[in-house]
C-alpha cells in the first residue's frame, strides 16, 4: 500500500509536469497578449517595456522554467488582471465563496440523492421510483443557468421569500446552493438506484435472506456497503468540479467566486493566473483519484491497490 502511494505520488508529479507544459504551450500559442489593448494599440515601445517588466520578452522555455521554479516555491506570480496581490492571494480570496456554495451544494445534494436512489431501488416500479427517475433526469438535463433562472423567478420574484442574488449574507446562499445541489442529487439518485438494484440481485443477498437476516440489516449492513464503490468513484471529481465554482451559477447569483476567473484569465491572457488555475485543478484531480483508490480498498478488502491481488 505504501509503495503504491509513493508510486501514485510520483505519477501525480509526472502528470503535473506534462499538463503544465501542454497548458503553457497552448496558452502562448493563442494570438494576442496580456497588454494588447481592446480597442486601440499602445505604442510598440511601451508594449515592449511592459512585456519586459513581466519577463514576457524572454524565450518561451526560459519563461516556462522561471514560472515552474516559482511554482516549486509556491510562488505562482502576480495576476495581470489584479496587480497588487499574488495569484495565491487571489485564489485563496476568490475560492472561499465557490468552496462554500459548491461544497455545501455537493454535501447537501449527494446524501439526498443517495436517499432518493435507495428509495427508488427498494420500491422499484412504484410511484416513488418514477418520481425519483423524473427528478434525476430533470436535474441532469436542465442546464444550471435555466435552473438558477427558475429558482430566482419563483423564490425571489414571485414569492419574494429570498433575495435574488448577491453575497455574502447567508440568506443569499440558499438559491445558489439549491442550484449546485441539483446535479449531485440527480447523479447520486441514478447511481445509487442502479448500484443498489445491482447488489440486491447478487447471490450473496439471497444467501443472507436464506440465512434469515432481517431485511433492514441486509440493506444497511451489506447492500449499502457493496453499493458504495461506484458512489465513491464519482464523489471527489464531482466535488472538485462543483467546488471550484461554476461561471454560470456565480454569474446568475452574483457570487464573487473563482468561476469567472477560469474564463477571464483566458480572455485577457492572464498567463500566470491561467497556469495556476489549471495546475490547481490538475493537482486536485490527481489527489482525488488517489484518495478514491484508497477508499476502494477500505470498502472492499478484495480490492488491493496496486494490483497485488
Amino acid at each position: 500500500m505504501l509503495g503504491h502511494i509513493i508510486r501514485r505520488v510520483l505519477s501525480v508529479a509526472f502528470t503535473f509536469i506534462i499538463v503544465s507544459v501542454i497548458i503553457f504551450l497552448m496558452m502562448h500559442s493563442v494570438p494576442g497578449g496580456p497588454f494588447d489593448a481592446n480597442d486601440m494599440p499602445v505604442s510598440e515601445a511601451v508594449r515592449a517595456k511592459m512585456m519586459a517588466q513581466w519577463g514576457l520578452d524572454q524565450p518561451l522555455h526560459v519563461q516556462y522554467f522561471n514560472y515552474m521554479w516559482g511554482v516549486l516555491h509556491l510562488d505562482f506570480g502576480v495576476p495581470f488582471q489584479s496587480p497588487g496581490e499574488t495569484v495565491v492571494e487571489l485564489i485563496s480570496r476568490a475560492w472561499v465563496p465557490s468552496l462554500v456554495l459548491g461544497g455545501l451544494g455537493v454535501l447537501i445534494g449527494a446524501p439526498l440523492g443517495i436517499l432518493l436512489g435507495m428509495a427508488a431501488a427498494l420500491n422499484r416500479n412504484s410511484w416513488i421510483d418514477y418520481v425519483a427517475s423524473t427528478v434525476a433526469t430533470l436535474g441532469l438535463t436542465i442546464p444550471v443557468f435555466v435552473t438558477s433562472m427558475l429558482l430566482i423567478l419563483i423564490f425571489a420574484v414571485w414569492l419574494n421569500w429570498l433575495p435574488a442574488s448577491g453575497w455574502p449574507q447567508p440568506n443569499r446562499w440558499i438559491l445558489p446552493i439549491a442550484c449546485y445541489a441539483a446535479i449531485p442529487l440527480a447523479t447520486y439518485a441514478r447511481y445509487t438506484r442502479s448500484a443498489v438494484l445491482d447488489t440486491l440481485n447478487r447471490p450473496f443477498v439471497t444467501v443472507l435472506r436464506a440465512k434469515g437476516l432481517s431485511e433492514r440489516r441486509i440493506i444497511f449492513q451489506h447492500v449499502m456497503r457493496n453499493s458504495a464503490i461506484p458512489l465513491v468513484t464519482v464523489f471527489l471529481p464531482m466535488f472538485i468540479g462543483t467546488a471550484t465554482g461554476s461561471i454560470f451559477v456565480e454569474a446568475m447569483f452574483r457570487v464573487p467566486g473563482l468561476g469567472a476567473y477560469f474564463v477571464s484569465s483566458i480572455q485577457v491572457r492572464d498567463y500566470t493566473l491561467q497556469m495556476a488555475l489549471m495546475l490547481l485543478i490538475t493537482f486536485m484531480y490527481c489527489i482525488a483519484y488517489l484518495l478514491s483508490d484508497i477508499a476502494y480498498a477500505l470498502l472492499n478488502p478484495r480490492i488491493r491497490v496496486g494490483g497485488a491481488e
Partner: protein
Amino acid sequence: MNTLVRLAGVLVAATALSIPAFAQTTVVAPSGSTAGTYMDYMKTVYDRGTGSELLQIPIATFDKEFELTPMAAESWTQSEDGLTWTFKLRSGLVWSDGEPLTAEDFVFALQHAATSGYDFAWYWDFAGGIKGWKEVTEGTADVSTLGLKAVDDLTIEVTTVAPKPYLPSVTSLWYPVPKHKVDELGDDWSLDVSTIVSSGPFEIESWEKSNNSVVLTKSDTYTGPWSPMIDRLELDPTLNAPEVGLPAFLAGDADYSFLNTGQVPVATSRYPDGIRKNAVFATSYISYDLDAAPFNDVNVRRAFYYAVNRDELTSTVLKDIAIPAGSILPPGYPGYNPDIAAEAVFDPEKAKKFLADAGFPNGEGFPDVEIWYRDEGGYNKAIVPAMAQYLQAEFKEVLGITLNIRALPGPEWMDGLRGKKNNIFIAPYEYDYLDPSNFYGIFYNGGRHGYFIPEYDEIVAKADSESDWDTRYKLYAEAEQLMIDQGLIVPLVHPVTIAVVSDQLTGDGVQPNSLGFTQLDRLGHYFFTHITKQ
C-alpha cells in the same frame, strides 16, 4: 423590572443607531464590466476599477443635453494662433486626504500616462493632439517635452500640434492623479481602498475585486460642482447583464436594470413609466482590408453598401435595440448630416450592378469570405451576432455570395484588424468625446483600421483644426461623402439601450433629455449626482 429597563435601554440605543442608517440613501446600480486592475482612469481605461472616473473630477464634463460643463476648470481660453489653451482651475479643490488639488496633479496625470503604458494613450494623440505626445509614448523624446505646463497651482497650459477647436470637450476624460500618492507608493496607490484618494463627488468605501463591484460614498471634502444627492452608491458589474439585472431589479435588489429584447415587453407592461431609452453614440459598420482582394475593388465595396436593408434589420432581428445607421455619426451627435445619412438606401439593383461591374455578375466567381466580429458583452452582445447572421442571409439573397461568420475574442479580433489577417470585419465604435473628429479620426492616417487615404486625411486634418464651426462641419461632410464614394465602410446600425428604472429613483438624472433619451451611467458624473431615492 430590571430586565425590562435594560431591554428598553437596548431598544432606545438600537433605534438611535439605526436612524442614521435608515436616513442614508443607497442606490444600487449595474455597471459596465472591466477587469478592475487599477482604480485609476489615467492608468487604465479598459481594465479600470469600477467607478474610478466618479472618484475624480475631470476638467470638464457633459450634462444630459451634452452641453460641456466646466468641472475642475472654471474657464478656458484659446490663444490667437489656436495652438495653446489655458485652463483656469477652481480654487479650493482638495483631495480626500486634505492635500490641495493643483494644476500639477492634472499635468502629472498625462505625463505619467504618456510614459507608463496607458491603454488609452492614443486618445491624447489622436483626440488631444498634444504636442510631443507621439514622440514621448514611442520613447523617442523626454516627457518634459510634452506640450503641458502647470503655470501655477491653478493654471494649466496645453499646447497642441495643430489648432484643436474642440479640445475642451476632449478634457472630459482628463482626470487628475494624486502626485503626492504616486511619489509615496507608485502606481500601487490605486490598488487598495485604504490608499486610494479621490478628488471627485464620491469617495470609495469598499471594492470587491473578484467581480469589480464597489461601494462609493458621497465625498465630505468635495467642493466642485454637482455634489451627489445620495449618500451611497453601489456599482455592480454583475448586474450589467439584463438576465441577471432584471430579476434582481424585480426582487428589489437593484434600482434599475438594462433590458434585453425578450424582456422589453414584460418590463414595459409592468413598469410603463419606468422605461428609459438611450441612443448610444455608437455605430456598427463593416470595414475592410482595402488592399486585399476582393475588397480592393471599390465596386465590390459599393455593392455591399447598397445590399443592406437597414430598416428591415432594425425592425425585425434588432427590434428595440438598434436604429438604422446611414452615417458613421449617430443622430444628435455634433456634425451629423441627415442628407448624407439618407444616401444609405437599400437598392438591390444598384448593388447587383456594382458587383457585376467588379466582374462578379450575380456573385459568380466571388470567393467565399469570412466576416470577423468581436465577441463581447454589453449592448453589442445582443446586436452584433444577430446582425452578422442577417447580413449572411442578405448578401446571399441580394448578391449571391457566401459570407461566413467568425466570432473572435477582443484581442484576436483587434489583432486581425490591425494585422490585416482578414479582409472584412464588423466593427463597433462608441464615441469617446463629443466632436466629429472622434469618429473621423478612426480612419485617419492609419487609425484603427490601417486605412491610408491621402485625400481623406487631407480633408480631415483641415477640418480638425478649422476654428469656424460651419466650415468644419462642411469639411467633415466632404470627408464622409468621400468615404461613401470610395465605399470605405458600410454603416449598419446605431445601438439603442433600454432600461427599466425604479419609481423610487427620482431627480433630473432619470428624466429623458430633449431628444427623449436618458443616458443613465453613460454620463456618470451627471447621472449619479442628479439622482435621488425616495
